[in-house]
């Protein structure tokens, strides 16, 4: 008659008592739960938002193409002295032509220059539209597709034609319900004929990629002055060739720009993928801080659990005495209180998960940040909360189990 299936008794009885005690102290349970809930909610909302940021950033970068590079005197992410980059010499068309001859491994290449300007058609006007001067090869680098008409041609560029290919937002804004191809638009009082329209690309870090007008590179300079520097967009056939292309380009660019031996490169080769890494380093730090804050909140919640469990142990001292007298082992009592602590926390975790996910969702609806919540995050949230409860329940549970039965029975 020793201890048949003692573990089963511990678990079943522990769970039953936990549920009963939680139901008996509803208000207290809810309040205690709130502490853990807020912690989990904070953590989940932050994680959700940051994961969302990362995901959308990666998706947006992907639209740039993993097989592309952008050579410029400025790096995309400036570290250190801006003037150092500012003082580098601008690229020239002569350099572009020599580069083209020396780098046959590039599948496409186009100089690119841009500014913001107002664009109008008839009575409609749009401000701060990106006007970008490029050559015909840019289409293959940009990742846009033609939805109507055609893209710029080589002839457009050599003869500096006033033609334009417009982005989806510009189509919507200036030509509601009308086919834009063949129509004219005015950019800073100069007239351009629309020859093509572009597919929609969406947003990049909150900025629309479809509020754009492409015009021939040479036309850009003849229309808007030539003091502006340009970058050179280029693509290779496949993303796997980007690394080796970058290595070769360094040598070629130094030769083309006559960089003295021993001097630093006077140009930057920018890759979307490298930008993603820099971005992740930045958000990684933010992530760490945010998760730290969430963990501290959870810690506070955990102390709340511990406090309430200590109260619960005191309140139920006699009950513990009775149970011990009737044959409950220490382990059974420990189990009872651990189950209680972790179920309070798990309920809190569930509550917090709901609130946290809700918050992330609301944030994604009212701001350009797209929150991304993965199923694993939810599981981790609830599980983690239960774990916190378990950890902070250990001490009160041990105190309960170590009560002297005689003393406990006598407790008033």
């Amino acid at each position: 008659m020793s201890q048949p299936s003692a573990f089963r008794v511990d678990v079943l009885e522990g769970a039953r008592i936990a549920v009963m005690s939680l139901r008996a102290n509803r208000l207290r349970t809810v309040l205690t739960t709130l502490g853990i809930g807020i912690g989990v909610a904070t953590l989940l909302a932050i994680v959700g938002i940051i994961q969302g940021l990362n995901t959308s950033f990666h998706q947006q970068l992907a639209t740039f193409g993993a097989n592309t590079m952008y050579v410029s005197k400025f790096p995309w992410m400036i570290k250190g002295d801006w003037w150092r980059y500012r003082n580098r010499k601008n690229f020239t068309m002569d350099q572009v032509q020599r580069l083209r001859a020396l780098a046959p491994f590039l599948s496409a290449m186009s100089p690119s220059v841009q500014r913001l300007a107002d664009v109008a058609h008839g009575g409609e006007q749009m401000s701060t539209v990106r006007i970008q001067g490029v050559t015909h090869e840019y289409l293959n680098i940009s990742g846009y597709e033609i939805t109507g008409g055609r893209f710029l041609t080589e002839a457009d560029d050599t003869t500096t034609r006033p033609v334009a290919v417009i982005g989806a937002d510009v189509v919507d804004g200036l030509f509601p319900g009308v086919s834009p191809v063949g129509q004219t638009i005015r950019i800073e009082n100069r007239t351009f004929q629309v020859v093509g329209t572009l597919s929609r690309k969406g947003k990049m870090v909150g900025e629309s990629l479809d509020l754009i007008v492409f015009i021939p590179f040479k036309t850009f300079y003849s229309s808007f002055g030539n003091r502006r520097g340009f970058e050179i967009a280029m693509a290779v056939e496949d993303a796997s060739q980007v690394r080796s292309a970058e290595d070769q380009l360094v040598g070629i660019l130094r030769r083309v720009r006559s960089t003295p031996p021993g001097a630093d490169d006077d140009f930057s080769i920018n890759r979307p993928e490298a930008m993603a890494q820099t971005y992740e380093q930045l958000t990684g730090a933010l992530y760490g801080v945010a998760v730290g804050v969430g963990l501290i909140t959870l810690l506070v919640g955990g102390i709340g659990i511990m406090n309430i469990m200590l109260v619960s142990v005191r309140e139920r001292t006699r009950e513990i005495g009775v149970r011990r007298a009737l044959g409950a082992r220490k382990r059974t009592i420990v189990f009872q209180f651990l189950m209680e602590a972790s179920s309070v926390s798990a309920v809190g975790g569930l509550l917090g998960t709901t609130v946290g996910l809700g918050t992330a969702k609301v944030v994604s609806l009212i701001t350009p940040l797209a929150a991304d919540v993965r199923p694993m995050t939810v599981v981790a949230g609830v599980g983690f909360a239960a774990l916190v409860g378990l950890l902070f329940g250990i001490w009160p549970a041990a105190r309960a189990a170590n009560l002297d039965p005689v003393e406990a029975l006598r407790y008033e």
Partner: protein
Amino acid sequence: MSAASSAEKLILVEDITRVFHVGGEEVRALRGVSFGISRGEWVAIIGQSGSGKSTMMNVLGCLDTPTSGRYMLNGKDVSRMSDDELAVIRNVEIGFIFQTFQLLPKETALANVELPLVYRGVSARERRERAKAALDKVQLTHRMHHRPNELSGGQRQRVAIARALVAEPSMLLADEPTGNLDSATGEEIVRLFEQLHQAGHTLVLVTHEPKLAARCPRAIRLSDGQIVADGDGRQVAMGTASDVLSAGGT
């Protein structure tokens, strides 16, 4: 006293002492107590407060262990058992009946009675059946779904007795079982004890009331941590019994 050999005794206490340390001072609650109780006996342990009877009750109930000496319960030496082993012994060998009933307030009478079986790992269905049977013995089946606060004092004590009976322990150990009851209800409980005694249960009753002890066939009087009388219940209770110390030894 009978000359029954120690092997037949359900309870055999040999030269037990229990020393407490309270604020640096040594309190000798029991100083060399020896006696035996056979199966089926009904024995009262009486004494004034401070006589050591509560300590004796805790030791007999395996809630406490003696500082020295030996305590054999149902053939097992329980004086040196671990905490977990004692929990099992309490569950299997002892049915407690307390002065303050010690029922769990949030559970029904039935659930309270089931409790010892829970810790024995008995299935839910069997627990229910056996608890109902135990409540039937104390004539309380009609109140089994009530909580303790919906029951009278006498009914609560009967629930507690059913709880003590349900796991069929070797002995029932009652601590001032009528202490919180009016005399009529107390009498009702004593009658119940008489019935249980006649049914063959072993009963140990710890009390300070001579009237209650006088109802028991045998009583042991403790004073100052030692046995001062052991014999017929009425004689010991009334103080007319001669000091019988010879019965305990060996």
